């Protein structure tokens, strides 16, 4: 299982509590996290299912490299943080 935590700034628009999901890549983990929260998906990913321009994702403290396919690996018991980037203001 991996833990997915969303930026508090998202909570004013849509409830996104931390949750434990299955997944060996960022894509798998986020798909699982959004399975029961489809609206939240559109706040993090764009129309092509890529990470939105001013969003950042960290896996165990390291920024992911693949913002398009989200193929970065996530180890067992890993922690994913989904945050807004300050480049977006």
């Amino acid at each position, binding site marked *: 299982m991996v833990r997915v935590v969303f930026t508090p700034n998202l909570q004013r*628009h849509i409830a996104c509590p931390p949750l434990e999901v299955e997944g060996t890549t960022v894509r798998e983990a986020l798909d699982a996290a959004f399975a029961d929260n489809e609206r939240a998906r559109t706040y993090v990913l764009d129309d092509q299912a890529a990470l939105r321009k*001013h969003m950042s994702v960290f896996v165990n403290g390291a920024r992911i490299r693949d913002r398009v396919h989200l193929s970065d690996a996530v180890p067992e018991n890993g922690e994913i943080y989904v945050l*807004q980037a300050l480049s977006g203001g």
Partner: protein
Amino acid sequence: MSNRILVATRKGLFMVERQAGDVAGWKVTGCDFVADHVSMVLADPRDKRVYAGLDHGHFGVKMHRRDDGGAWEEIATPAYPEKPEGLEDNDMWGRPIPWSTSKIWALETGGPDEDGLIWCGTLPGGLFRSTDNGASWEIVRSLWDFSRVKKWMGGGADLPGIHSICVDPRNSKRVKVGVSCGGVVTTDDGGTTWDSQISGMRAAYMPPEQAFDPDVQDPHRLVQCRADPDRFWVQHHNGIFRSDNGGTAWEEITEAGPSTFGFAVVVHPSEPDTAWFVPAIKDEKRIPVDGKVVVTRTRDGGRTFETLRNGLPQEHAYDLVFRHALDIDGSGDRLAFGSTTGSLWISEDQGDSWQTVSANLPPVYCVRFG
């Protein structure tokens, strides 16, 4: 005669209403989406629903709707289809065009025979249609493909956008869109096919031999006279243009008071020769001429203009009025406009005099009676 105005701003959607019994009293009566960027608003007169396009920046754009007397709810947001793998589809800088809605920039209702139909214009240039009051959206693929063949380009943004949608009151299948930059594009069959061939519109920012190319034009705003639908007005990046033949041939208006540059234009609903503009120093400066906020009005099709300033600031004023921030009500007597510095003015006498509703709103993006 409208007694309510919706004002979409950088920090919320404001309601402004005329106070009963008070001849000159328009007041801010409420604010929804406080602190949120609202780029566009539409009040549908058919069923009193209101639509708002929000831009959450990091979190993308979202569409909201409120039924008459109801609460706001987030509805489906226009979303681009999956981009074909390997498709080479680049902007003018050679960068891949992002197939994702980055701004909701136009919202209009369909014709009187099209219950539930809403049109939505966006950046990066897609047009969307809903037939169920926004519950779902479909991209008009024919125009999306057309836009990339014609190589639309950004006007004031990195990406092109559809900012104006005019549905012919005589024929709902005839729809004209204004694109920055992509000119004026028309469908006569409800969106199956499109045509951008126009004449007379001039792009001063292009090499001379390309100045009249229809596909490079930057009409800032396109409006159609409801009572005389063959009459269109455009406030363009480098001037004012008028069409008398349904938007095919355009005549440039070279003199219009302080300036022919601006973003907004409205036309009287039943007097095609009467139109209003909010001029600014052109192009590289974009501030009011001489620090004076004025509205210009023509009543003779652009042959002559009056400069209207009664009630508007006449010194050290740096308000700019964006393309959607000027509106006129169905009677043609009431106008309202809002500015980048958060001012909002209303006239009840076709612009002869103006009341300041506020000078402290957030930057105003869209003003609509309704």
